[in-house]
């Protein structure tokens, strides 16, 4: 009975940790490349986030199941092989059902393989914990990543085109900041957002 009562809060904490306290983008600074590259607009950012959730959950399940068979020196290799298999599935799926989005994301879909978040979760969580904890952790981290991507993309899309989700929201006099859709905008927006998060959490921690 005691295990049942303690398991619930722990799972909840694992889930919440991915959303804010250990948010992969804002707190752990992992997975920077896709974060910066696909956030010119909300739609590709959301597609990227969902693909990452899929890959993260699947690879965490597999790694968790085979965690007792892993040899230490071959660990990373096994992780990357597992991940690249699922990324291939996600890539083929996107190419078949979302050809326009697949074209737009280009090589950044296969680059999910080297997204540090996934390897980090496989190493830090799935290779040490059971199936349920690993799945909850993957979902929490994945949603945290997607949210961070969408916030960044929302700011950039709003300022660079005056639109969100391709619907106009800014008044007519608004002059779009073209620089926000370029690499410059990505770096500076993320820098300022991180600064904001630091300021918000400084008092608490």
């Amino acid at each position: 009975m005691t295990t049942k009562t303690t398991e619930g809060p722990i799972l909840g904490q694992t889930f919440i940790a991915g959303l804010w306290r250990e948010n992969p983008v804002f707190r752990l600074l992992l997975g920077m490349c896709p974060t910066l590259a696909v956030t010119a607009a909300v739609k590709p950012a959301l597609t990227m986030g969902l693909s990452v959730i899929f890959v993260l959950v699947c690879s965490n399940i597999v790694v968790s199941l085979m965690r007792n068979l892993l040899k230490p020196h071959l660990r990373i290799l096994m992780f990357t092989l597992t991940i690249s298999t699922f990324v291939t599935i996600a890539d083929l799926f996107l190419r078949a059902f979302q050809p326009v989005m697949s074209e737009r994301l280009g090589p950044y879909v296969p680059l999910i393989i080297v997204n540090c978040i996934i390897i980090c979760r496989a190493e830090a969580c799935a290779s040490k914990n059971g199936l349920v904890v690993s799945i909850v952790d993957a979902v929490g981290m994945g949603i945290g990543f997607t949210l961070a991507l969408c916030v960044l993309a929302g700011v950039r899309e709003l300022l660079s085109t005056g639109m969100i989700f391709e619907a106009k929201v800014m008044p007519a006099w608004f002059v779009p900041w073209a620089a926000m859709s370029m690499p410059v905008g990505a770096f500076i927006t993320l820098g300022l957002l991180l600064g904001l998060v630091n300021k918000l959490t400084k008092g608490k921690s």
Partner: protein
Amino acid sequence: MDTLNILLVGFISIVIVNNLVFTKFLGICPYLGVSGRIDMAFGMGMAVTFVVTLSGTLTWLIDHLILMKMGLEVTRYVCFILVIAGAVQLVEMYIRKFFPSLYESFGIFLPLITTNCAILGLCLFINLWGIDNLLEAVVLSFGAGIGFTMAICIMAGIRENLNMADVPESLKGAPITLITAGLLTLAFMGFAGMIR
């Protein structure tokens, strides 16, 4: 003469105009993580240059001689990552044997070269751009490594000076590094459109 011209233009383009760090956001993790001191940044750049040249060449050969001939393009990502992991293992063993102090200071970042997006990214871009000439693939891979080294060394130089600057409390650390990177990118945007 003509091929030499193409190679030269390709090299300059990948080092300056289409620099992987500044325009494609590849290799950002070590770019932010290891750029604290200039000597470490240079060592990292050299290691990445070696791995990227080796794996760029090998993946081109595997892609063209095996995968395309046998219709196994589906397994492309799995093969690429295997080649890269092998190359990184090689570099790791070499550095541990001959430069033990450098090996110590790299720590976790050395095996993490495997997950450096710049390397897999370049292999994918070579495939995407349809490079059908081995020599061009080698030059492009080497150029990508040099471009990465240049970017990370510039960044390390700036950050060494940034230590003495008065930065607002909440922007210390990663945020100010990202903003600096943004301004650096702005400078490199001046080269955009110069070649291709």
